[in-house]
């Protein structure tokens, strides 16, 4: 089915071909009859061999031969000579079949099946493999079979590693050899075999080995992925650590004592309609075991029940990078203006473990103060907001005043200082430095630019407490790659966006310059919310969420986003603008299902409903991926199945304002559906809901 020319090279003799087909049919028919009737005579078995030589893909013939072998083995009663002769015959048939098609699954499996009966010298098998690998070093059947034989022979990983070295020495352009090397090396390092205990030494050796593969032919991909793996092994933090949190260490937070419906807040006043105050823990990798035993929360008022920590991840395996819980704030019978000291102790008792099995070993403590405010006199009146409009003239640049020292303090303390980083391994920094210098010689080609960009980014990841360096250079490299390799433009654009966001969130000055007061004529500036505006940045992917846990109002309009994966960490988010982006479906908004405080959402001017293919269909919890239970569609309207994506995203939300105009999905019936789905809605597309 592959590689045959459309116009045959020689004129076709129709009659001869028809005769050939007729003959094959007759043979197959006879064979099937033998198989049905369980005839295993010498002639019958030979017929199957003849067929398999013509067509090794005839799987029923391999099954038939196994049945014949079983019967013959039973008859010869373990006479070693007979057994050998029977099994040898099978091996011969396999070899003939492989000559026809050395990618035949059936043939290779039959050989394994025969071998498992305890026959053939293994050295002979290795010899056969060498022959096959000489013909085609990329044949994965041969590599799989080699793994099978090596296991039977109990060959050491070290010996097999040497074999990959031999293959690589013969030809650097052998991805299969590099892959097998990565498997064996991972194993040797995992079991700390002698000679493989020093990560520094092992990686330095491997970097040297793969370097030649990358430099010899700049377009040959064989070494690219191996090199990327080495880089990951160099910078990957083995230990699970707490990277950031909400609240931030040392914060001073005011909470309204009464229900403040949409009453708004300055930086350090929070408006929760259900008086549930979130606590968010952001780790450097996915962990499990975060619960009220491993994280203790103590505050001046009693908590009614053990806190329930939830992993912010759309899976049920109980692990995530970000965990959250909610403190139920008691009623205002407590004194107002009293400050409560809250202490969150993470990992002082055992139990938090990374998904790779490493225990959390760096206990941290986060302390902050809570002030419960008595409701102001105006609370009896309607202190609701008007409709939020995301226009430039509704925002005033944030001027830090004496009333709010906390924003600056907060932005100073976004990243948790973990002691382990201060002893930043010098071997890692040294390797990154060496590799960067070496690859600067390759900057005129794609893989050179990409590798240097990655190395510089890796360097920053080794020093999370310091301001990232080389951002400008990295951004330039990605911009050059967009021009050099336009087929993969979006890959480089997404990476460019991530670095851009790292740069933007890297300093408090940069963040402050993007903080704005939302001006509403009904409220004084004291009560107006603070908005982080990351609009018009041309970003196509989001990141740096660990720096943004404090954000309540976020403007991401006029960008090129098609996903908001990771936004679920921003548990305080109550107003979000995603207008003028590239969102294609409601399934791309999965993260919103975790934002219980979201009140105002603008997804207008996107591409929802314009695409026949949904690229986030399976990254979304729905019956298609068996990630929701049986569903109650019967919410007194028919259209919920037509709009099932919107149904799942919005159904549990308490939105007061929603904008969806400018998407192909909008229609009268869709708007009717939305109004029924969201009883709390006050404005839909700028129009007041009845």
């Amino acid at each position, binding site marked *: *089915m*592959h*590689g*045959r*020319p*459309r116009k045959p090279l020689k004129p076709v003799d129709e009659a001869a071909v*028809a005769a*050939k*087909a007729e003959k*094959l*049919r007759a043979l*197959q028919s006879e064979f099937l009859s033998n*198989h049905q009737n369980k005839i295993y005579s010498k002639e019958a078995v030979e017929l199957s061999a003849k067929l398999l030589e*013509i067509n090794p*893909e005839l*799987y*029923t013939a391999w*099954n038939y031969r196994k049945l014949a072998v079983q019967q013959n083995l039973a008859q010869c009663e373990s006479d070693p000579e007979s057994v050998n002769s029977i099994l040898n015959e099978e091996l011969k048939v396999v070899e003939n079949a492989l000559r026809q098609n050395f990618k035949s699954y059936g043939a290779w*499996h039959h050989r394994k099946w025969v071998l498992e009966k305890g026959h053939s010298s293994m050295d002979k098998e290795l010899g056969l493999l060498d022959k096959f690998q000489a013909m085609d070093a*990329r044949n*994965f059947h041969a*590599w*799989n079979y080699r793994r099978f034989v090596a296991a039977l022979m109990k060959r050491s990983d070290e010996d097999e590693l040497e074999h990959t070295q031999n293959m690589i020495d013969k030809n650097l*352009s052998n*991805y*299969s050899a590099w*892959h*097998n090397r*990565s*498997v064996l090396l*991972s194993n040797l390092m995992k079991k700390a075999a002698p000679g493989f205990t020093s990560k520094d030494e092992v990686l330095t050796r491997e970097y040297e080995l793969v370097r030649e593969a990358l430099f010899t032919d700049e377009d*040959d991909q*064989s070494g690219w*992925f191996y090199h990327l*793996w080495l880089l*990951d092994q160099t910078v990957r933090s083995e230990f699970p650590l707490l990277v950031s949190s909400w609240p931030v260490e040392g914060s001073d937070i005011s909470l309204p004592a009464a229900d403040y419906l949409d009453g708004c807040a300055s930086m350090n006043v929070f408006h929760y309609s259900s008086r549930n105050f979130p606590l968010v823990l952001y780790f450097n990798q996915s962990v499990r075991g975060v619960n009220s035993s491993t994280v203790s929360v103590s505050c001046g008022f009693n908590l009614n029940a053990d806190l329930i920590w939830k992993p912010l991840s*759309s*899976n*049920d*395996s109980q692990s995530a990078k970000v965990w959250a819980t909610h403190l139920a704030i008691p009623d205002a019978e407590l004194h107002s203006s009293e400050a409560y000291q809250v202490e969150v102790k993470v990992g002082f008792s055992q139990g938090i473990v990374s998904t790779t099995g490493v225990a959390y070993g760096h206990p941290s403590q986060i302390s902050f103060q809570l002030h419960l405010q008595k409701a102001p006199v105006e609370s009896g009146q309607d202190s609701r907001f008007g409709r939020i409009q995301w226009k430039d003239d509704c925002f005033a640049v944030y001027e830090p005043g004496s009333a709010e020292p906390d924003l600056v303090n907060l932005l100073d303390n976004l990243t948790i200082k973990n002691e382990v980083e201060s002893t930043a391994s010098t071997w890692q920094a040294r390797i990154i430095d060496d590799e960067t210098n070496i690859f600067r010689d390759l900057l005129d080609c794609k893989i050179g630019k990409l590798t240097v960009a990655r190395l510089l980014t890796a360097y920053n990841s080794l020093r999370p407490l310091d301001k990232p360096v080389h951002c400008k250079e990295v951004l330039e490299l990605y911009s050059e790659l967009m021009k050099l390799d336009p*087929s*993969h*433009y*979006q*890959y480089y654009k*997404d990476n460019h966006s991530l670095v851009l966001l790292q740069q933007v969130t890297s300093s408090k000055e940069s963040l402050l310059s993007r903080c704005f007061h939302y001006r509403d004529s009904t409220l004084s500036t004291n009560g107006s919310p603070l908005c982080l505006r990351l609009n018009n940045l041309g970003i196509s992917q989001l990141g740096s969420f660990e720096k943004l846990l404090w954000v309540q109002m976020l403007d991401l309009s006029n960008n090129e986003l*098609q996903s908001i994966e990771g936004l679920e960490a921003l548990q305080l988010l109550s107003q979000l603008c995603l207008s003028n982006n590239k969102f294609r479906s409601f399934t*791309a908004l999965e993260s919103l299902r975790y934002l219980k405080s979201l009140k105002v959402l603008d997804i207008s001017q996107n591409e929802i409903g314009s*695409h*026949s*293919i949904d*690229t986030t*269909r*399976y*990254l979304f919890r729905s019956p*298609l*991926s*068996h*990630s929701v239970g049986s569903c109650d569609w019967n919410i007194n309207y028919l259209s919920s*199945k037509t709009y099932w994506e919107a149904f799942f995203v919005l159904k549990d939300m308490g939105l007061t304002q929603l904008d969806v105009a400018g998407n192909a999905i909008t229609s009268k019936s869709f708007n009717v559906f939305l109004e029924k789905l969201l009883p709390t809605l006050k404005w839909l597309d700028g129009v007041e809901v009845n």
Partner: protein
Amino acid sequence: MGELAADKHVKYILAVEKRKDNFESAVLEHLRMNGAYWGLTTLDLLGKLDAVDSNEIIEWILKCQHESGGFAGNVGHDPHILYTLSAIQVLALFDKLNVLDVDKVSTYIAGLQNEDGSFSGDIWGEVDTRFSYIAICGLSILKCLDKINVERAVNYIISCRNVDGGFGCTPGGESHAGQIFCCVAALAITGALHYVDKDLLGWWLCERQVKSGGLNGRPEKLPDVCYSWWVLSSLTMIDRVHWISKEKLIKFILNCQDTENGGISDRPDDAVDIFHTYFGVAGLSLLEYPGVKAVDPAYALPVDVVDRIFFGK
């Protein structure tokens, strides 16, 4: 650039379905069940499923079922999980899953799961992540996913994940686009895509696009239209399909058509076959080519067929 010669391809598929006397159909007789799935799904994607006699086909399918509950590639051949899925998929196309004894088929499939969570293709024990996908996809369509140990099945698939983010056929097996499709789709259906490093695998997959605009199946290999499915559906499921040039791929697929006689081949000017015709059209569907119905990247069936099964529309 050319256009999709949809009518020619429909004629080609209908002709192949009828031709039983040439050498090619003799050699491929044992996988006629797969051929039925490839041909009929293509017809449905081009809006022409009604051009065939569904009753005749269903009758033949049922003749291929064994007492074990599994389906063979053709009448008289042995049952295997490969053909069992194709049988289920074809019946789903015709909305005739009700002709099945669901319990019997699902028991056959579930019985092929091994202790370590992997699946064998049949009683002879070949293990491959392809079979994990087949079992999960087939049982999911039959709404019997709970008949297997899903956790173990997922764990086995994870054990086949490589450092490049891809997946192989067995633990330690090299990443290959076909295996990657099977593993990613199986994880998608079981709600386990969080085990995939989307950025890492996305880069590996997007680098399958070579200068000609076609996609290969692994590094330093030739492009082939069938990878327009294996690679593209994987990229679609992890939301990284925007990392390749869709225009260049469309061009490549269209260039692989035989616009005279119908059918699509693996590479321009090679011989056409049903296999590549299906994958070319399915690839165009994922690229939102006009006139082609949307295909579901995990179940490899038209979206309206999948939605009918899960949302009962």
